[in-house]
């Protein structure tokens, strides 16, 4: 068996989700090769070649792949990936965007967002917002899979000694083009990789009040998340949303502040090791999953918490 992992990166650095996808690939077992597609990303290729268990890195460096447009990347991966038994990518917005296209081009079904590897063709994945866990078996010749990064421990960044090989296959569709992007600037750790996450919900009342959370987050080195209610109300940008339709996190500590705990939010954080809920409504469903609950007004609790840390 040979496994192709499509690396996630920003043309400069490897995204941690790639290391976790490599861990899933190791559990499947077989020769692991990594495809790095992008523009000016040879450093990414050299670095990922050192990751534990990587046998070979294939670099497709071209203008066409700069922004990882799904149309171009899918054509490349489907063409290059034909000889492999498995093609894996992290279930990030990038992976979710191009992988189903790859699967359809190869005429195979896709297994999305796996949380465990049972065997080389059997996987577990959450369905119904994580309220049920399905064990599925793929009968396709090529298994196209996206991996939920929080469910796997990443492989070591050092220890491997893969070779980097360049390919010049260029797929550049004429139908889509990158116009621009607005990325949220943050000094705090990445939400999906943080050890501690503090999230605010509708109870925060407005965007300004999020500084109360940010102050605590800075003391703890935590990332700041939000519920859909807080995002929809315009308190914070959407890339901070934790939940079924936002990001999936599983930190050591998750602090939910002013969040009621709807099914859709729980889907994004209930695998956290320790959950703390701060809410003035004693009946809020979040208390049913919280290890530690504090029934109190967040506007009193947050400054106090900040001063005591």
């Amino acid at each position, binding site marked *: 068996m040979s496994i192709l992992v499509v690396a996630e990166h920003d043309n400069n650095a490897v995204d941690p989700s790639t290391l976790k996808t490599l861990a899933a690939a190791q559990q499947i077992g077989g020769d692991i090769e990594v495809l790095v597609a992008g523009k000016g990303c040879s450093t990414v290729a050299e670095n990922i070649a050192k990751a534990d268990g990587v046998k070979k890195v294939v670099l497709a460096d071209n203008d066409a792949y700069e922004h990882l447009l799904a149309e171009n990347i899918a054509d490349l991966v489907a063409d290059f990936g034909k000889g492999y038994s498995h093609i894996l990518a992290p279930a990030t917005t990038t992976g979710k965007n191009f992988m189903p296209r790859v699967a359809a081009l190869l005429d195979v079904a896709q297994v999305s967002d796996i949380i465990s590897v049972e065997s080389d063709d059997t996987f577990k994945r959450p369905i119904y917002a994580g309220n049920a866990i399905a064990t599925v078996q793929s009968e396709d010749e090529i298994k196209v899979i996206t991996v939920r990064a929080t469910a796997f421990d990443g492989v070591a960044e050092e220890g491997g000694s893969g070779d980097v090989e360049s390919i010049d296959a260029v797929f550049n569709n004429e139908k889509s083009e*990158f*116009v621009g992007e607005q990325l949220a600037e943050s000094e705090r750790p990445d939400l999906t990789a943080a050890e501690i996450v503090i999230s605010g919900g509708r109870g925060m009342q407005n965007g300004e009040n999020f500084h109360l959370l940010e102050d605590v987050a800075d003391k703890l080195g935590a990332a700041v998340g939000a519920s859909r209610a807080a995002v929809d109300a315009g308190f914070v940008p959407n890339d901070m949303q934790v939940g079924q339709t936002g990001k999936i996190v599983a930190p050591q500590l998750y602090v939910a502040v002013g969040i009621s705990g709807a099914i859709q939010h729980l889907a994004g954080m209930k695998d956290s090791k320790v959950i703390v809920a701060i809410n003035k409504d004693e009946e809020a469903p979040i208390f049913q999953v919280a290890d530690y609950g504090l029934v109190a007004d967040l506007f009193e609790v947050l400054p106090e918490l900040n001063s005591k840390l």
Partner: protein
Amino acid sequence: MKILVAVKRVIDYNVKVRVKPDQSDVDLANVKMALNPFCEIAVEEAVRLKEAGTADEVVVVSIGPKAVQEQLRTALALGADRAIQVETDNMPDSLSAAKILKGVVEKEEPDMVILGKQSIDSDNNQTGQMLGALTGMPQGTFASKVEMNDGFVNVIREIDGGLQTVKLSLPAVVTTDLRLNEPRYASLPNIMKAKRKPLETTTPDELGVEVKRTIKLLKVETPAERSAGVKVADVDELVDKLKNEAKVL
């Protein structure tokens, strides 16, 4: 221009699902069903484009047993012009659904196909992208804004780090994120009117599509339950427990 919208009948998003005792699947008997929330947003966007004068016709399509006609009628009540049901015994997987939709696209020749980004039951997030691949159309997934230009569509997409804008030539596939719009409620007169709107039924056979399933569902389990922990009295106790009991600070 003509817009095709694909909609799916799923369990109502407020319902907490129960796994069947034999672990064969979740129990959907006597459970409230509804239009998938992302599909509702897709219908709303198409109807808004029609109201803005950009689109002339909005066609909705759903795949599944007769019961999906209920969701098609809902979409018609929200403002779609006509509906197509592709009758199948069960809900097909994403690849078969995409193939069926490709058949409908070939017949209807829409300028844009709008789908939800994922259905809240299978949580696959695949069908729109697969349809894009099969038809050769470009895709604007996880859209939070759709702006029509002459022969093009600009789609603002929600990505992990923020937002990204792509320009797609038409025909194109767009999948909706939650923030694209706020769907309207269907008024009673519109619900009555929707009953008289055309609803055509076809089958995968008629569209020349073979429905197959290569992913077998072996087992469905309830996830490990988290039990409620303890309530603490104040901030001091909370900090103490986190430091000394949970050891996460």
